[in-house]
Structure formats: C-alpha cells, structure tokens
C-alpha cells in the first residue's frame, strides 16, 4: 500500500509541507542553541546553522520527491496551470467546449446507434450461427413483398428433414398485425394485444431463457393441444403488475381460455429485432401440422450446425430445393427458394446503409470541429508566445511546453466529453422515446461503457489533433525574439496565416459535402411525401375489431360488422365507414392473380390482396378509374373483384379489364372496377398488382374499421368508443389511429436519418462560417494599426472592406470548389438512400453551394466591415 500512502502525500501536500517547515525550523534552532552553548555569538551561530542545513527549498523539494509521486505531481501541476489558463480565457473556453461538446455528443449518439445496430452481436446465444432464410424468386431476388419473403411450412419441413448444415429451422408468422388478440375477462378494460405465432423451437434456438415459467412444450404445438401463451415481459409488468404467480393462470384471449406458461426475459424485445415498430406482447404457438399446406406464412430463422458457413448452407439448401422440384408434386405452383443470410444482416439491413452514411457524416462534423478548434488554439497560441518564451527562457524544455499545451487541449477535450455525453444521453433518450423513430434494436442503443470508451478515445484523438499544430508552432520559435517584440501589433507569420486559412478551407469543403448530402436527402424526402399514395390519409382514422369466438358462426361476425357500421354511421359528423382486413402501409399479404382464361398462368403474378367492405374506396379516397366500386347489393350476388390499374394493364394489356374474369388466390370473380394504384407496402416502392375482394363474399374475422369524418377524426374518439361499446362492450377499443399515422410511420426512419444529417450539416455550416469569421476577425484585429495608417493616408473604407471580403470569399470559394468535388464522390455512396433525385442533382448542388457561399460571405463581411470602420486616430494611438 506504499503507493496509496504516496498518493495520500500528494493530496495532503500543504500539511506535510508545513510539518517539514516546522521540523527544519526546530532543527536550525537546536543547532543554533548547541553552537551558542559552545561559545558562539547567537547571530553567528544562526548563520552557520543555516549553512549546515543547506538550501531550504532544496530540502523541501527532496522531501516531496521522496514522499510523493513526482510524475503525477508534475502532471497535476500542468493540469492546474491549464485549468487556470482556461478559466482566465473563459470566452475562448466556453466557445471551445461548446463546439467540442456538440461534435463529441453527435459522435457519441451516432456511435451508440451504430454499435447497437451494426457492431454488437445480436443479444442471443452464439448469434453468428443464427441465419435468416428468405423465400423469393430464384431468378430475380430482391423483392420486398412480405408474402414472397415468407415460406411455406411444408417447404420448411422438407428443409428440416434434409439439411445437415442447418441444425434447426423455426420461425414466426409475419402476418400478425392482422391477427390481433383481444384480452378480456380479467375485470380490467378490454385490450387489443399484438400477438405473434412462433414455432416452439424459436426461443430455445435463439438461446434466451424465460423470465418466469417456460417456453412451449411439444404437447402445445400439436392440433387441439392445450392452449398455451407466453407473455412479453413488458405486458406482464404493466397489465399483470409483475405478478410472480402468473404462470399457470388462465387469461381470456379472443374469448378463449389460454394458460400462461411463461414470461419472456426483460431484455428480449421481439419487435425490435424482427419487426421494428411493433410492440409484440403475446406469443402463441404456431401449430405446424395445421399450417403445413397454408401459403407463405412462415418467416424462417435457422441455426447453422457448428462450423457450417453461410455459403455452404446456401449451396446445400439450393440443392435440396432443386431436388424438391422433381420429387415433391405438392410444392408445384408455389414459388419457393431459400436465400440464406446472417440474421444480424437481416435485422439491420433496412438501416445499415443510412447508418454508415450517418457515421461518415458525423465523423466529418468532428473533423470540422477539430479544424475549428485548431484554429482557435493557433490564434491563442500567438498571443501566448511571450508566456511560452518566458517559460522557455526560465529553463522549461520544449517537451515540457508541448506537454503543457497538450494537457490544455486534453482538459478542453475532457470538458467537451462531459458536455457531449450529456447531449448524447439526452439525444438517445429522445430517440428511444420518440414514437416517430422506427429502428431495429433501438431498445439496446444507449450510452453504455462501449460508447463511453469510444467517446473518451475520440476525445484523446481530438486533443492530440487540436493541440499538436499550435504546440509545434508555438514552441518552434526563438524565445528571445519573442521576448524582444511586443505582442501587441505583431502580425502572425505568413506561414501561420496560411495554416489557418487552409484549415478554414477544409472546413468549408467538408461543410459543403455535408450540406449537399443533406440536401439530397431532404429532396428525396420531399419526393416521397409527394408520392401519389392512391388514398387520402387526412380526415380518416381507424380502429381494429376482432370478433372472438363468442361469434361462433361467420354469419354472426358479418352481422356484428354490419351492426357496427350502421351504428357508426349514425354519429353526426361521420361521413362514411368501411372495413378492411389490412390498411395500406400496415399489414400485407399477397395471393396469385391471373386472368381466368389464362389457365397456363403465363400472366399470373403475386398481388397484394385486400378484403374490404362496400364503401371502402369512397371512405379511403381511392379513385375508381373505370367500372364501379363495390355496392351493398354485391354481397348476395355473383363473386366480384376490383383490381388496380397496374394489375389491369398486366392482365389484359390493351383491353378493357372491367367485365373480365380473374382468379385471385383460389377465387374466380368478375372484375367490376379498376381503381388507382395504392402504395401498400412502402412509400418508396411502386405499388405492384393489387386486388380487392368484397366482405362478406370473402368474410374476415379481424378487421379495421376506417371512419371518414368531416373534421378531425380524433376529436370523435369518445363517440366512436361509445358506439362500439353499445354494440358489444367486450370489444377492446384501444386506439383510434389516424391514417396519417401510418404514413408517418412509413417515412419515420427516413425522416429520422434526414433530420440527423440535416442537423449535422447545419452544425457544419455554422462551424465553417465561424471559422471564416474567426480568421478574418483575427487578421483584422492584428492589422488594426496598419489599416489605421492606410485610412489616415487616404485609403477608402470601401476598398478596405472589399479587400477583407475578398479574403473571405477566396477561402469560401476554394472550399466550395473542393467541397463540390468531394460531394460528387461522396454522394455516390448514398445512391441507395435517395428517392426521386440523382446523386448529382444540379438543383441541390447549386442551391446548397449558393447557401454556403452566402453564409460564408456574411461571416467574412461582419469583421470586414469592422475593419473599414476603423477610426485611424484611435487605431494608431493603440498601436504605438
């Protein structure tokens, strides 16, 4: 524990020094006494005693070295000195710490997102062996139609039987948004829950452990097995108040009794991994034997055998699929293929491009911050030349001076980290809570140890970057030259001013690149919002109704739906009401669609399918292009179908579609109308083929009611709730969601990235103009005397002004040119993030370029004007 005592000695410097001083004083007195006793005069004795003891400060110095930690002490001394310096220049310190804080905070925020989404392994056991297996067109991969991405259970079972490299196959049904689960019968308000069907091996395959109870047992995933349900940790905490005796209890879901068998662990968020934006609350067993011959209903997750690689597994799966072509006639007519990718890729795929981009952008912001601070430090360094010269003349070595300067920048960086981490924590909290941000794995993103270490490392790098240049410049000089000159009126050398200008040019170039990047994203976002949705989102809202098993017969369900609609129509202000099984940009599924006469299936293709009530098109504002919409009378007539424009053109090219017969799924029906294309899957994805069947010709149990109102639909939430209660009080009425929210959610991650990048570009612009302002302002300040003389000799203030503005314009111009060039390169990387604009969109380049130039000129103009207004008399008096 010697080092501890030594450390203590460092801290208790004062009392220990006092102690020693007392001891030395006593020592001298005792020695004096002895010498007096030996016959010396007191004055003489004291003099000799002092000589014998020697130099007191040397004794003190040796004492300190012996008892303390000399290296630490000199570091502390540096720190103390640095701190004093920073406090004295509080204006500089404030600006520097603010700039650093913003730069570091932005980096810490983006890093924690990148870390959670892209760098960290998934929070599962041996996540490297987890894979995602996607269905798709084997000749033409890359579709995003969810039905085409899911696989048939039958196919999955064949894979399971034949694969050696993929240990296990499991999964979940991705069409859960439709299958909502009504929780009733526990005395609380009925509630609509998002439930997903999972295979019994999914959770064990992921390697998570139940928080309570267990996961599904084989007996629970067979037809007519005991109904078992697993609750999410969040639901258990909220709805069941963390009741530890929940396992074994019955709950009422869709009018059936289900036994709670387990609760998922708190750190497992199904939605955030597999379906970002959905809060999945209950897990229902997927009974594969019931689902074998269903369509593409299973999103498949697998676990590789130990040592197996993705390419090997892919090759094996391809071979199996080719064999199935020949051997398994029951697979005929279904597209099936298995595209294997790491599960982690699948999870982050939708955002990884944008995130890497953001990371690059935020790195650029940090570079600008560094350039800016370097400049500030340089300017400061010039005014500290005398101080450095004095210290150097007093014997401080160059390394000691450099260390002092680096200590100062480290201290600055440290303060910047404190501010930055505060900002980043705030930002992450906002991102985490914001409903508008739909990102996968967001529950795991936060300022954790990794993020902290990254930030700290960043700060050290920044400190070295911003401290190095000034340190070299300041300490390279001849101290005696500096001691000889007065600092006032001295002009920095040409080399220094060139360095500063170059740093500003770099800042402008980086800012320009960021601005153009952000501009392209903003333009893309505008294009997306201008997309022809095919429906009218404003003035509509929807709620979900799930007819439980109390409505045993499907005719009861139809009656309930009719009753609900009639009751809702009575509400004053309600203009129309219609039901649909899926809302646009929400849930999705697709069936095959072909002309009835095309028995060979040459024109067949998959199409989004919607089962809608009559009045749906009018309620949603979907234009009918030819033929007519569904009417109430159609319900009892022959089967009818309505298709969209794209499908009509594909199925009957050059012919009138209305009046033709089409087969959608297994249903043949007469086409009675063609409607506009609706963006069903994503805003930035063309609509593809779409078809609509009429409820109750094809009935649905679980549906969304869309209500169109004269005013703001949400103002009528209470009336709508009451109407639903009157019809059936057991129907959970959880939310009356504006359709606009669906559009919002569909663009949320795009908006998020656009907002972030725009924010960074804004910071960059601000910092770059601050850089220009700083350099001009400083040079004007330094040359005040010179300008005064010139004005006194008759120079026109206008000329002085122009000269300074030109200097600013020159820096901005060179920076702009470099920035445009680098933007041309950098924006190539973001092509996949753009929509409706090219990476070389001239409007963006011109607009952003002009904006940058204007701001830069303004930044230079302000100090230039100050120069032109210099009063020659005072300037000369000050300078002399």
């Amino acid at each position, binding site marked *: 524990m*010697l080092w501890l*005592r*030594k450390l203590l*000695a460092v801290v208790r410097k004062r009392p220990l020094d006092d*102690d*020693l001083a007392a*001891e*030395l004083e*006593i*020592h001298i*007195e*005792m*020695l004096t*006494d*002895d010498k007096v006793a030996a016959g010396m005069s007191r004055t003489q004795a004291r003099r000799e005693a002092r000589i*014998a*003891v*020697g*130099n*007191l400060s*040397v*004794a003190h110095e*040796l*004492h300190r*070295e*012996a*008892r303390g930690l000399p290296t630490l002490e000199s570091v502390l001394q540096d720190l103390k000195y640095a701190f004093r310096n920073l406090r004295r220049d509080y204006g500089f310190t404030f600006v520097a710490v603010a700039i650093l804080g913003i730069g570091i905070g932005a980096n810490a925020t983006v890093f924690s997102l990148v870390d959670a989404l892209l760098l960290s392994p998934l929070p599962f056991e041996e996540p490297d062996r987890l894979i995602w297996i996607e269905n798709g067109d084997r000749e033409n991969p890359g579709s995003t139609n969810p039905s085409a991405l899911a696989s048939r259970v039958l196919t999955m079972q064949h894979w399971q039987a034949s694969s050696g490299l993929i240990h296990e196959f499991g999964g979940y049904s991705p069409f859960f948004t439709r299958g909502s689960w009504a929780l009733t019968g526990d005395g609380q308000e009925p509630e609509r829950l998002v439930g997903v069907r999972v295979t019994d091996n999914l959770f064990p395959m992921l390697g998570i452990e139940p928080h309570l109870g267990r996961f599904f047992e084989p007996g629970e995933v067979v037809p007519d097995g005991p109904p078992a349900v697993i609750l999410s940790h969040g639901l258990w905490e909220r709805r069941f108040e963390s009741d530890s005796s929940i396992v074994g209890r019955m709950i009422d879901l869709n009018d059936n009794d289900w036994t709670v068998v387990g609760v998922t662990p708190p750190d497992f968020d199904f939605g955030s991994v597999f379906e970002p934006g959905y809060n999945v609350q209950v897990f229902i067993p997927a009974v594969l034997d019931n689902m074998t011959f269903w369509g593409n209903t299973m999103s498949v997750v697998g676990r590789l055998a130990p040592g197996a690689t993705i390419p090997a597994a892919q090759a094996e799966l391809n071979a199996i699929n080719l064999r199935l072509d020949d051997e398994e006639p029951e697979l005929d007519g279904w597209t099936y293929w298995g595209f294997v990718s790491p599960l982690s890729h699948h999870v982050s795929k939708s955002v990884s491009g944008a995130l890497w981009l953001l990371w690059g952008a935020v790195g650029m912001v940090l570079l600008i911050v560094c350039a800016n601070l370097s400049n500030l430090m340089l300017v400061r360094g010039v005014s500290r030349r005398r101080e450095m010269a004095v210290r150097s003349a007093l014997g401080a070595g160059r390394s000691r001076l450099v260390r002092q300067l680096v200590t100062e920048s480290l201290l600055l960086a440290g303060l910047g980290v404190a501010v930055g981490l505060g900002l980043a924590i705030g930002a992450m909290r906002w991102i985490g809570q914001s409903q508008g941000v739909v990102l996968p794995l967001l529950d795991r993103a936060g300022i954790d140890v990794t993020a902290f270490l990254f930030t700290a490392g960043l700060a050290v790098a920044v400190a070295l970057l911003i401290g190095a240049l000034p340190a070299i410049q300041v300490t390279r000089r001849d101290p005696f030259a500096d001691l000889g000159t007065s600092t006032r009126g001295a002009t920095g050398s040409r080399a220094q001013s060139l360095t500063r200008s170059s740093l500003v040019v770099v800042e402008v170039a980086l800012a320009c690149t960021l601005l153009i990047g952000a501009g392209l994203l903003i333009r893309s976002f505008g294009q997306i919002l201008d997309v022809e949705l095919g429906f009218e989102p404003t003035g509509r809202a929807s709620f979900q109704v799930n007819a439980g098993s109390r409505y045993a017969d499907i005719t009861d369900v139809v009656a309930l739906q009719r009753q609900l609609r009639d009751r809702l129509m009575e509400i004053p202000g309600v203009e129309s009401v219609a039901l649909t099984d899926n809302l646009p940009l929400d849930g999705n599924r697709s069936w095959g669609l072909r002309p009835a006469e095309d028995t060979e299936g040459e024109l067949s293709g998959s199409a989004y399918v919607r089962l809608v009530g009559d009045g749906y098109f009018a309620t949603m504002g979907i234009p009918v292009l030819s033929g007519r919409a569904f009417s109430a009378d159609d319900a009892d007539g022959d089967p009818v179908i309505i298709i969209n424009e794209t499908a009509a053109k594909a199925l009957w090219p050059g012919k009138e579609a209305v009046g033709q017969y089409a087969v959608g799924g297994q249903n043949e029906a007469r086409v009675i109308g063609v409607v506009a294309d609706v963006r069903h899957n994503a805003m930035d994805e063309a609509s593809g083929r779409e078809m609509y069947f009429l409820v109750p010709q094809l009935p649905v149990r679980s549906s969304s009611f869309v209500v169109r109102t004269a005013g703001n639909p949400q103002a009528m939430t209470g009336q709508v709730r009451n109407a639903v209660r009157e019809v059936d009080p057991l129907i959970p009425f959880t939310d009356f969601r504006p359709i606009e929210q669906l559009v919002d959610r569909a663009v949320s991650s795009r908006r998020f990235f656009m907002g972030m990048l725009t924010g960074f570009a804004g910071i960059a612009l601000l910092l770059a103009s601050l850089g220009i302002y700083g350099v001009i302002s400083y040079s004007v300040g330094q040359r005040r005397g010179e300008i005064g003389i010139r004005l006194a000799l008759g120079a026109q203030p206008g000329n002085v002004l122009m000269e300074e503005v030109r200097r600013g314009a020159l820096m901005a111009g060179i920076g702009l040119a470099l920035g445009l060039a680098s933007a041309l390169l950098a924006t190539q990387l973001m092509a996949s993030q753009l929509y409706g604009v090219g990476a070389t969109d001239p409007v963006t380049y011109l607009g952003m370029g002009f904006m940058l130039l204007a701001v830069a000129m303004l930044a230079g103009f302000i100090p230039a004007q100050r120069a032109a207004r210099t009063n020659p008399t005072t300037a000369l008096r000050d300078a002399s």
Partner: protein
Amino acid sequence: MPKLDLLPGTLDLLVLRTLDTLGAQHGYGVARRIEQVSGNQVMLNQGTIYASLVRLTQQKLIAAEWGVSDNNRRAKFYEITERGQKQLAEESDAWWRLADVIGAVLGPQDAD
C-alpha cells in the same frame, strides 16, 4: 582531505543504523550523530536528512511522532520499527559483503 560524498542510497542506511543505536530521536539528533560518528568526513546538507526520514516512515521502517525534546522543544521523534530492524540487519549484511568484495578486489591499502 576533502569531505566525502555519500553514495546514493546509503543515507537511509545510516539513518536506520543511527536510530537503532540511539532509540527515539529527532532529525537534528540523527544529523548530529552521523556527523559526529563520521568525524566530520561526510558532506551532509542536514536538510536533506528529512527526505530520508519521510521515505523510511512511508516504508514503515521507522515510526514518527511529535513529542517534546530534553530542552523542552516540540520536535518530531523517529523510532526504528521491527521491520526497520530486520531491514537494517539485511542491508548492513549486504553492505559488508559488498565492502569485503570491493576490498578484496582493490587489494591491501598502501601504507603511506
């Protein structure tokens, strides 16, 4: 003959030995004793002895306590600890062995 400079590190040994002989003693007493015993041959800035004292205290080889001297002055008294005595035994042993080796190599001193 000019005074001798102490070899680095030997002051600690001298201080330990002095405290072992004298018992509890203040810094001045230690310095005085070393000068006396050495017959004033050693060059000693008495102030430097305190660095040695604090170092030994930190290593728990000696213990320090404020007290009152014979002539009624407040002073810090140092006393060798058990650990210090052990250390002293080891180090003086090592010193003698080293001195013997050096003496043997240098050979018998010329009498002049």
